[in-house]
């Protein structure tokens, strides 16, 4: 790998971490996944066509690594904790507290979505890939991207809205817990 490509790969890292975070729901596992993806990418670097975008290729490598890993860890997803979407401005007025509350809330909701919807949502809504680019990364037709995206977005919004304590869902109140 020449130094220029290496720098390019380093420049993609922040987005890879973000993509991985959205997929697995916590930063520790996400970094583990990014590391696995980087190691794979380095081992199979001749699989990358220098005429194409490195970031798209890396998203693909990471997505594949995640799917491979997910098969072994599916049980874990059943124990996802759900955070209530009750951001009381009187309590959580600080932007950072709200941001971390949003993060926790979205992390939890994302973990309840089917894996296929999760990756499309992240690539299009967060990483701002076009439908064609996302289709390329995930190896599915653009039509599939659109239907997963539409369903995923509606489901995510409803999950975040619809979580109520009286529905028997465990509720965590991170702001109060911090005192």
């Amino acid at each position: 790998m020449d130094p220029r490509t290496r720098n390019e790969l380093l420049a993609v890292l922040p987005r890879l971490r973000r993509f991985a975070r959205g997929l697995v729901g916590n930063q520790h596992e996400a970094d583990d996944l990014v590391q696995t993806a980087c190691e794979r990418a380095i081992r199979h670097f001749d699989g990358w066509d220098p005429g194409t975008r490195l970031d798209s290729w890396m998203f693909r490598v990471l997505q594949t690594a995640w799917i491979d890993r997910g098969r072994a860890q599916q049980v874990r997803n059943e124990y996802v904790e759900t955070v209530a979407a009750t951001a009381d401005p009187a309590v959580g007025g600080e932007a950072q507290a709200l941001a971390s509350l949003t993060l926790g809330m979205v992390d939890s909701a994302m973990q309840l979505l089917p894996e296929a919807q999760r990756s499309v949502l992240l690539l299009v809504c967060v990483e701002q890939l076009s439908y064609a680019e996302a289709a390329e990364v995930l190896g599915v037709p653009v039509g599939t991207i659109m239907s997963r995206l539409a369903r995923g977005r509606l489901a995510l919004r409803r999950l975040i809205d619809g979580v109520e304590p009286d529905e028997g869902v465990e509720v965590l109140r991170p702001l109060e817990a911090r005192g």
Partner: protein
Amino acid sequence: MLVAFVDGELDAEDSLAVHVALRHDPALRERVRLMRESAALLRAAYGDVARQPLPPALTSVIRTAAGGRRRVRSRWLPAAIAATIALAVGLSAGSVAPRLTTAWQRPDAARPDAPGVATGGPLALLTPGGAPEAVLHRTLERERSGTSVAWTDPDSKSEVTVEPLRTYRAADHTFCREYRETVAIPSAPAHTGYGLACRTAGGRWNVQYVLLPAAQPADFSP
């Protein structure tokens, strides 16, 4: 179709058609709102993740991928420290420490300001005098990981060997290197330690810690 409208993926004609439909259909408008909000939520939640400093273990995976043979198995720095402790323990148990071959990029090749090494490593303990520190500094500053540099004290004939093992970039962007150093005093077994040194902005290598095998051979007398 509706989602493509939200993401601006429709051509002008289709986009106009959706505009018209939205005007007459509140349920459709609600779906557009939900879709927009979920995208906004996702961006709000994950935006910061990409702005956080990168864990050194991740960058070192890439930095050390220089081509040719690779052994990139680094983790977080604490894990690396734990591994080093394990290495030292393994050494004292009589096993052979594995050789890690990784590449090393110098942070800034030719800084004119005076470099130096903070004292505190076993080099200072075992072979008094300034020369071994200079060897340590020179090696950390110039040599790739896996390359060892030896120096023999002209008076005591003791030999000092320094070998950088791995390189990290810490969260504050300073470079840190793990290294192995061996001090061989004539007619005594060689003494090996593992250290971590970090480079200051001024080009000094500060030794953060040095690990020595817990038990030396019984017949070793310093």
